[in-house]
């Protein structure tokens, strides 16, 4: 009982937001399957962007608001492939490759600036985002078409600059619904659950085999997988769930990719580089004194974050299908930071679990608050303002808590 209380207290933020979300769902009066179908889409779009925040936090640089930079690189890649006229999954891969190189350069430059402003990384990364937004707009409003002559549908009628919205019709769901030998991979909810239950069962078995241990934990894991698989098969045959089955689509390739990234981050943290990052995050001076190249590793962490964000943005738009060329990236930093903080992360510590939970809660809230306010006030704008207030307030409060904690720790050390 005491343990449960402590668990609840240490996870105040996610619990609180969970409650707000539940109230929102009830007030909105929208069927669960509709909300869930939207949530799966939103989760699919945003999870990689949120995951990209983790590594700089480990490195002690706080929340990297500069993932806006990565998002811009991703959009650049998408615009480039649209101009070149590459379609489908090939287009996505080409965009990812171009965004990769652009993100390395941008991440390197951002890392350099952040190294000059140690202790103020968060505000600097925020301003870096705003500043590069200006450069980005300049490039796509004037340089493309103005200086570099390009012929494409997405150029404005005057011949200079990109249109506000870029249609990615022939790229939509290219990754989400990657057809392998003609089989669609964007499946209904219950097939998705079945697939991932089997996938995780295999994964757990492989882990157990690698570590040569098979105990209580493994049995529970496998049993949970089996239960999910069985439940999905029973539910798919029940008429009560036909709506859910029809509405909700699980994009298996994107989720597999996300799981892959999570596993990679986990493994990366165990390498020498990852350990060095942790050491820097713990105490920069001690790490520097013990021979770790602090500046270099901080730059690497920013580069990784920027590249992941670039790919995250590409996944975002291949799901959405139309790209907001000029404003699509602007709020990425704020939203993703708010999401991971709602998941219970702090400026000092962020885990994959917190990123996943935070993305779910944040986007649930984002989805239901306009619906709820439509029901309550007959106007969806109030809900829109409400969620933005919460989004900014969460970040402000989390940052304040961080300051209180560091100060308390300082006091302890002095005493």
């Amino acid at each position: 009982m005491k343990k449960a209380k402590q668990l609840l207290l240490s996870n105040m933020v996610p619990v609180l937001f969970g409650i707000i979300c539940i109230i929102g769902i009830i007030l909105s009066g929208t069927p669960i399957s509709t909300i869930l179908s939207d949530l799966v889409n939103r989760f699919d779009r945003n999870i990689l962007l949120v995951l990209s925040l983790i590594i700089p936090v480990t490195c002690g640089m706080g929340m990297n608001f500069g993932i806006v930079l990565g998002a811009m690189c991703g959009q650049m890649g998408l615009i480039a492939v649209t101009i070149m006229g590459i379609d489908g999954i090939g287009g996505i891969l080409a965009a990812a490759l171009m965004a990769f190189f652009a993100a390395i350069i941008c991440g390197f430059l951002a890392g350099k600036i952040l190294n000059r402003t140690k202790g103020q990384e968060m505000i600097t990364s925020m301003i870096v985002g705003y500043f590069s937004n200006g450069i980005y707009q300049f490039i796509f409003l004037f340089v493309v078409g103005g200086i570099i002559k390009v012929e494409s549908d997405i150029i404005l009628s005057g011949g200079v600059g990109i249109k506000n919205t870029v249609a990615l019709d022939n790229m939509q769901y290219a990754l989400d619904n990657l057809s392998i030998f003609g089989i669609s991979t964007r499946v209904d909810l219950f097939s998705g659950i079945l697939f991932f239950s089997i996938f995780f069962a295999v994964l757990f078995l492989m882990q157990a085999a690698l570590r040569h241990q098979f105990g209580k934990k493994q049995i529970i894991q496998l049993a949970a997988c089996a239960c999910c698989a069985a439940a999905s098969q029973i539910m798919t045959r029940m008429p009560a769930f036909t709506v859910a089955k029809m509405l909700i689509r699980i994009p298996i390739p994107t989720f597999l990719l996300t799981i892959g990234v999570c596993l990679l981050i986990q493994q990366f943290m165990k390498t020498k580089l990852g350990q060095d990052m942790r050491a820097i995050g713990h105490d920069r001076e001690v790490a520097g004194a013990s021979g770790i190249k602090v500046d270099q590793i901080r730059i690497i962490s920013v580069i990784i974050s920027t590249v992941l964000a670039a790919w995250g943005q590409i996944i975002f738009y291949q799901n959405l299908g139309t790209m907001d060329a000029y404003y699509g990236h602007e709020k990425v930093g704020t939203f993703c930071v708010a999401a991971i903080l709602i998941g219970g992360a702090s400026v000092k510590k962020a885990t994959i679990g917190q990123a996943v939970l935070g993305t779910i809660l944040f986007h649930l809230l984002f989805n239901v608050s306009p619906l709820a306010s439509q029901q309550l006030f007959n106007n969806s704008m109030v809900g829109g303002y409400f969620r933005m207030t919460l989004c900014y307030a969460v970040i402000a409060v989390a940052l304040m808590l961080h300051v209180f904690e560091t100060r308390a720790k300082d006091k302890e050390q002095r005493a």
Partner: protein
Amino acid sequence: METIKRGVRKFGMPRIIIIAFIIVILIGALLEGQDMAALISDSLVRVGQNMLLAVAMLPCILVGAGLNMGLAIGIVCGLLAGLLSVQFELVSWAGFLAACAMALLFGSIAGVLYGRLMNMVKGSEMLIGNYLGSAVVYLMCMFWFAAPFTNSTIIWPMGGTGVRTTVPVSDYYEKILNNFLAFQIGKVTVPTGLFLFVGAVCAVVYLFTRSRTGTVLRVAGNNQAFAGMIGVNVNRARIIGIALSTMLAAMGIVVYAQSYGFYQTYEGPLTMAFTPMAAILLGGATMRSVKIRHAVIGSFLIQILLTTALPVCNQLFPESNLSEVFRIIISNGIILYALSQAGGEGR
């Protein structure tokens, strides 16, 4: 060579670049055959209109709280005051002065609260101020939506309730300062009243920084530990500085609106803090030292640049928002430069 280098360093690289930019744009304007007199008149108005917002940065830097990124808090106070003055149908000077007085009142209340909060988070004022400011702007969005205003100038013509996104002050006190004692030199109009008012506020702020309280504020900002030792109440000094900053921002937006002709509600105040920040930094302020002349010089430079760039850019790329892109790059570039110059904690 050495003296040139030293001269450049003393004058400051950002200012040289911006002045060079202004010269290029003015040459461009001449070549395009722009109406130079109108351009200069507009520039003068814009300088006066925006200067108080830049001056509002000063007390905050003075007490060591950095740039006031939560300027939006002050701005929404000013908006509330302005809308109230319109609601009560106060016209002409009575309306403007009432709006200013209410702005100072609301600004002082909000500023003291904001200052108290900032005292709890010393060292991260800018970052937290920014997010707090945005949160307050959106909170006020909900308020604007539900606010019980009844004046038909304020509320939507059809819906009946809720504030409009832009509230015109044309029937109340539009350009009341700008037109006061305004005179013409050639074709250039000088908004005398605006400059007199802004100049008076600047003078008051200058005298304040020279006063006993001002010195206390400066000492508290320079070295907190030392200030504490010689018996200065650092927290109190910081609250005064931040509250003053918020009050100036609140009054600044009233002055802005009388010149601009509209109060911009809802998300309007969200990005308003960045140009004044850039202005005072461009004027030569750093995170450690700030003088009133920094705000004045900076406002002149950046506003002249932005105002003259607008028509020139529009001529070059019609129907584009190159000047807006320009604004984003320049103001954030200056802030970024200042941050990187302030340096971090070293290794």
